[in-house]
């Protein structure tokens, strides 16, 4: 298979991403307590963890959005603290909240972001059209983004993330607001992109999806990597059935029943 080939090539080559002993402190509190991580071409990495585990912070550090960390972050072999912003050209990013300049039309927004990544205006606009049509939004490309539904906005963000053909893709909850059919399209798309040799960092709270699409799962808890490996490997280690149960076990969370009972009791209160 073509995908398998790409993965093999990736495994043999330089890591696309390598993080060593990454620590980050907000005030007195460490959000990242020494993270070590490597990723290679063609990997789809499910990046999971409870709220506040430091997922978004790691991604933001790699994008250069957050300064003041200690440790080393190397992307494409370059230390990002020393490299200029050029490495960002090879990165695509979908942020968790769908914030855009939404009084622009999708065409205007996508052309602009494409240009920021160094595409010629005509090429950016042409690709924007292709991607929007691909997402079945060709009819809405000249409407203000403000008038879009949540799923449509998400598709615009995905388009702007992919427009410049990045090698490393960070997706923060990329399926939010998408309908079941679109979710299937995106799952397939991620698989194909990985087959092209792209590295995909996928962060989500929906365990079923992570379980299905990831070739590797990294679980973050309390600012540390609590587990790292393929789903099968993790399952062999933990002896649990689903990723959701694994997640509960690894993050040491067992009170869900009690909490739910408390809430149910509060509902009946009068």
């Amino acid at each position, binding site marked *: 298979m073509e995908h398998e080939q790409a993965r093999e090539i990736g495994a043999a080559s330089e890591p696309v991403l390598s993080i060593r002993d990454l620590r980050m402190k907000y005030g007195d509190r460490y959000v990242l307590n020494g993270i070590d991580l490597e990723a290679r071409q063609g990997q789809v990495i499910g990046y999971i963890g409870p709220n506040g585990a430091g997922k978004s912070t790691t991604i933001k550090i790699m994008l250069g959005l957050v300064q003041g960390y200690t440790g080393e972050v190397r992307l494409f072999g370059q230390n990002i603290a020393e490299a200029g*912003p050029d490495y960002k050209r090879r990165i695509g990013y979908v942020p968790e909240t769908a914030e855009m300049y*939404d009084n622009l039309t999708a065409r205007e927004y996508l052309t602009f972001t494409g240009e920021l990544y160094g595409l010629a205006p005509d090429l950016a606009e042409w690709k924007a059209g292709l991607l929007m049509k691909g997402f079945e939004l060709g009819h809405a490309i000249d409407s203000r983004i403000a008038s879009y539904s949540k799923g449509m906005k998400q598709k615009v963000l995905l388009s702007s993330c992919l427009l410049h053909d990045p090698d490393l893709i960070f997706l923060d909850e990329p399926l939010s607001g998408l309908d079941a059919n679109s979710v299937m399209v995106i799952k397939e798309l991620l698989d194909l992109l990985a087959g092209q040799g792209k590295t995909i960092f996928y962060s989500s709270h929906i365990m079923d999806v992570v379980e299905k699409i990831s070739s590797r799962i990294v679980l973050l808890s309390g600012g540390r990597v609590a587990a790292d490996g393929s789903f099968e490997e993790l399952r062999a280690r933990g002896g649990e059935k689903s990723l959701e149960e694994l997640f509960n076990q690894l993050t040491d969370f067992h009170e869900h029943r009690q909490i739910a009972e408390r809430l149910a009791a509060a509902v009946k209160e009068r």
Partner: protein
Amino acid sequence: MNNYRTLRVLDRMRLLFERMGIDYPVMRRILGLKLTLDKRRTTGAAALFRGGNRSSDSEDQPSEKSGIGRTLFFYALYGALSSFFLLIDGPYMIQVGIVLAVLLFVMMTSMLSDFSSVMLDVRDKSILHTKPVDGRTLGMAKALHILIYFAQFSLALGAVPVLVSIVRQGPAFAGLLFLSLVLGGLLVAVFTALVYLFVLKLFDGETLKDMINYVQIAMTVFMMIGYQVAIRAMDFSRFADGFQPGWWELALPPLWYSASFEWLLNGRGEAVYVVPALLGLMVPLLGAILFYRLMPGFERSLEKLSGTTSRRRGSRIKKWNRMLATLFCRSKEEQAFYVFASSMLAGEREFKLNVYPSLGFSIAIPFIFLFSFAAGSGDLMAVDYSAGLGYLNIYACAIMIPTLVMMMKYSGGFKGSWIYNTAPLTNVDVIYRGTLKALLVRLFLPLFLVESILFVLLFGMRIVPDLLVILAASALLFPLTLRILERELPFSLPFPTSSRESGGLKMFGAMLLLGMFAALHYGVLAFLPGFGVWLLLAVMLAGNFWIWHGTLFAKG
């Protein structure tokens, strides 16, 4: 939230409402909520005087003072101003006609701007209609809300004129004036509602939002310029006598009501007075009935306001703008930001609301200065067009520049600014340069050209070199203002909710700089006539080259 005076008045009619089958406590609760929301919202007229805007999504504590109370105060002020017309002599037809024309105009514009948020509130659908509240209660709450809003507003506007007329024209006149205002207001409300209905039926929600936006802008410009002009044109004595109305005035609603004054108070029973007076009574009432009938359809088309609409922006304009970008910007990134900023300027309603009024004002202000300085007489003929320096007043046109530069850091979609950081930008200067150039080319240049053509028509071709100097000085002012003000990335902050963020002293510094340019220009013309202008032009161009591309611009 539940202790408004209006609500306490309603409490006395509780039985009446309950007899109508309305769930009174629920209705009262909804009304209380709506009135609280009104209090925290600032729109139209009041926004102008805060030098700010009507942003509603602030994270600050909502200040109750800056809401509807303030708006009402300014409407009372308009009412007071218009009552001056009651003091001039003349037939009722003219006197009352002018007062009502002014008041109804203010009502009309504010209806279209302020009132729209009450009538077009789509949140009702998802918040209230999903709760177990029956339709009749909701309908009554909405109707009462509109009624309360409208009553507050007409009272504020009409209070002073009615009081003045009691003293000057007597209680009968005052009573008729009051009645006219109520009926006229109803007419305006019905008319506005029917306009909305019409627009929503034929077009889409985006068009309506754009229309409301432009009405708000027009209203602000009208008031800014209106004050200046009204002070200079308070001479209505020529209407004083020998006025005979014709049938054409049936088209002017204010005259319907002034005709009733002639009919009822002066006893003139001719058809030319009676017919308009009856129209003034019948049209608003029939309109209200018509609207009541169409109301369900209206509620349905409100859906459109939250829907998706596809509207194409002209591709020819886009090509043209892309060409300008390559003409004015050197690097590719700068061009990208130029085009981006142009679309932001064109597409952001709140930006337009904040900035366009000052653009309109900058067109008018050179003329206002010109006439004010014209030998004190305000006579156009007194200006020395063939040799004088009066054209230097066109410098006043550039007072929009500090506002433009200050406003460029704001956007309703400011959270989208993460894109600046994730993009591989080597030099943030391109962001500023591209945006400033977009402001210069898209907003300042067209207005300056219009102004220049008008001034050339007045003063002749001899001022063309001076106009070039003024253009160069204005272009210089953009980066200089940015250096004076604190530098924030364009479109990266929410619109401020209060005027204290408008950077008063620094703005003044930028204005002072403009004054210095004008003074320099004046000095050069006075002491170095002839070639001096060309010398100054060379200096200004060199300055532009230095500031826009040099190191001075790079470090803020």
